[in-house]
């Protein structure tokens, strides 16, 4: 039994889950924005990164780690709200290509600003939570305090968002504003505020993902670019309308990549992800978990 627990196959599963959790959170954050404003936020990774730079920059002033985390999340939330108010508002009703280009422009702009201020030399963060894997008879078990933190944070976020949507009045208003804005307005819901809130929630989740990712990989302006693509793939596979789908497909993708990299060939991971996306979307264009069809006649 012990040999199995520390063996290759089971360990890869655990490593994959830890990686998948981050992909899930990014996917969830993209779904939150999509549900509220029907925009694919290409700048999500960069915005979250910016928030992390702001918060973690305080570490050099001897501010406590968890305070820095809090500042990062707050910064992310504020940034999300500001972006919606100032930029995204002007894009409602515009052709599809407009928001994509604006968010790509924002991505380039933010990364360049981060590079100009903080340079592209990687910076490390020391977390108070150890990343050393627990050992069993001298071999590592695929979990460490840090990966437990990752999984715990993801569960907390998922449950929190889920509870918000399902059990609170605010959550109901958020869902109503996304599905039927005109009717909601008539019923007294401040739709504009709900949209802003959607962005704020999304960036909060995105910043948590970025904090986790950067604790392992260090901070550079373009750090989140790569994992954003996988997060997007997971969101699309799960269905852009479905938070559950985002979480599940993120995990599946993470585990698939871990096994593929270890047993097969790491070159082909991006291509395999593409194939998975194509196959899923051919069979079910609205994503696996989505209940809506993609277009109404």
């Amino acid at each position, binding site marked *: 039994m012990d040999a199995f627990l520390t063996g290759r196959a089971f360990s890869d599963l655990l490593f994959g889950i830890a990686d998948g959790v981050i992909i899930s959170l990014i996917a969830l954050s993209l779904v939150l924005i*999509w549900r509220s404003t029907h925009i*694919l936020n290409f700048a999500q990774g960069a915005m979250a990164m910016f928030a992390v730079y702001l918060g973690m920059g305080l570490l050099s002033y001897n501010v406590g780690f968890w305070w820095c985390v809090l500042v990062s999340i707050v910064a992310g939330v504020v940034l999300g709200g500001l972006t919606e108010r100032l*930029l995204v508002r*002007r*894009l409602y009703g*515009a*052709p*599809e*290509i*407009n928001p*994509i*280009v*604006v968010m*790509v*422009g*924002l*991505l*380039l*702009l*933010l*990364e*360049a*600003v981060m*590079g*100009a*201020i*903080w*340079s*592209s030399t990687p910076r490390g963060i020391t977390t108070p939570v150890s990343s050393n894997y627990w050992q069993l008879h001298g071999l590592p078990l695929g979990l460490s305090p840090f990966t437990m933190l990752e999984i715990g944070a993801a569960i907390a976020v998922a449950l929190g968002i889920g509870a918000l949507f399902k059990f609170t009045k605010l959550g109901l208003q958020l869902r109503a504003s996304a599905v039927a804005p005109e009717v909601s307005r008539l019923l007294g819901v401040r739709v504009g505020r709900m949209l802003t809130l959607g962005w704020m929630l999304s960036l909060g989740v995105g910043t948590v993902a970025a904090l986790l990712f950067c604790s392992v990989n260090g901070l550079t302006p373009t750090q989140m670019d790569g994992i954003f*693509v996988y997060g*997007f*793939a997971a969101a*699309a596979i799960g269905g*852009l309308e479905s938070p559950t789908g985002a979480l599940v497909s993120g995990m599946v993708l993470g585990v698939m990549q871990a096994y593929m990299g270890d047993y097969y060939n790491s*070159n*082909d*991971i*991006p*291509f395999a*992800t*593409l194939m998975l*996306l*194509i196959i899923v*979307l*051919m069979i079910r*264009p609205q*994503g696996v978990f989505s209940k809506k069809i*993609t*277009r109404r*006649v």
Partner: protein
Amino acid sequence: MSALFRVGDALRVYRDRHPVLWRLIWTVVLVAIAVYMTTHLSATTDGLLATGACMSIVILGLSFLTGASGQVSLGNAAFMGVGAYATAIWANHHTTTPVAVVLLIGALSGAAVGLLIGLPATRLRGPYLAGMTLLFAISFEGIVLFFGSWTGGDAPLQLPTIAVAPQWFVDRFSSSIPLFTLNQMWLADIAIVTVGVSFFFMANLFRSRTGRAMRLVRDNDVAAELVGISLPHARVLAFVVSAAYAGLGGALYTLVTGNASYSTYSLGLSITILSLLVIGGIGTLSGALIGGVIFAYSTTWIDWIVGKTGITQGGNLAANLPNIIFGGLLVITMLVAPYGIAGAIKMGAGKVSRRFRVTRMPMASG
């Protein structure tokens, strides 16, 4: 004064009666002027022109896909790469094929892959399509490595001999001009002629029945179906055309640079192409030209700006200034002038010409 109006009217009638011929004449004239100009420019400028020409062809293809049929693709650099590698592989096996045929091969291979990607794309909308093309862009490297025995794997695939000006071309110039300059001139001329041909075709396609059908699909797909247009066909066709143009641009780029390398055709380039399309102006021919020029000259201009404003050379700000400007331009363009530079000029010229019309009295006899 009234004679001018009469000439204008006559030209207009001719243009409406023989649109294709009209466009052909315009194309030939413009290409001739451009080719003449290249013979008086420096090697550096000719090199930049050739590069800009390649990109404007690719941008035009994306313009058709997005402007005409409303689909967003983030994978056009990968289609470019397909054409680039097809050209390089062909040239390594058959060294004496004429340039025009080689370029055609590039375009056709782009079209073939466009068909492959376009088919699943018919079922996808908006962000799903964008995402699929995004992943295609990222997997391009893996695909090149997978077919390593053909593509050379991770090493760039060089052309066996770089494209040089033929003897009849060299003989037309004085011997004091270095051969390198003449080669750059030759490449620029090939590029300009290719631009002329491809733009000519696109102009006709835009205004043909197919083009109009595409635009209807973009604006109101329900109405299009009611009129009997097959949506999947139209969408796939748009993909194929856009990919063919991208492949052509890639093939030309391989001629200009002498090699094909997957790292050139990255996601970053795809996004740059989209951005240049937006800044230049979606759905217009001149917009694609403007986008190409910006691509070629961006580094030069930025260096100039950095030099003039005294920012530390090579410092963080200098290295990131280009993207600050570029990203900022994208955001501002989209919010303020969504039709890009070409669109803004058209509207500005439209305002001016409306003044003309108002002051021309309807009773003025000819």
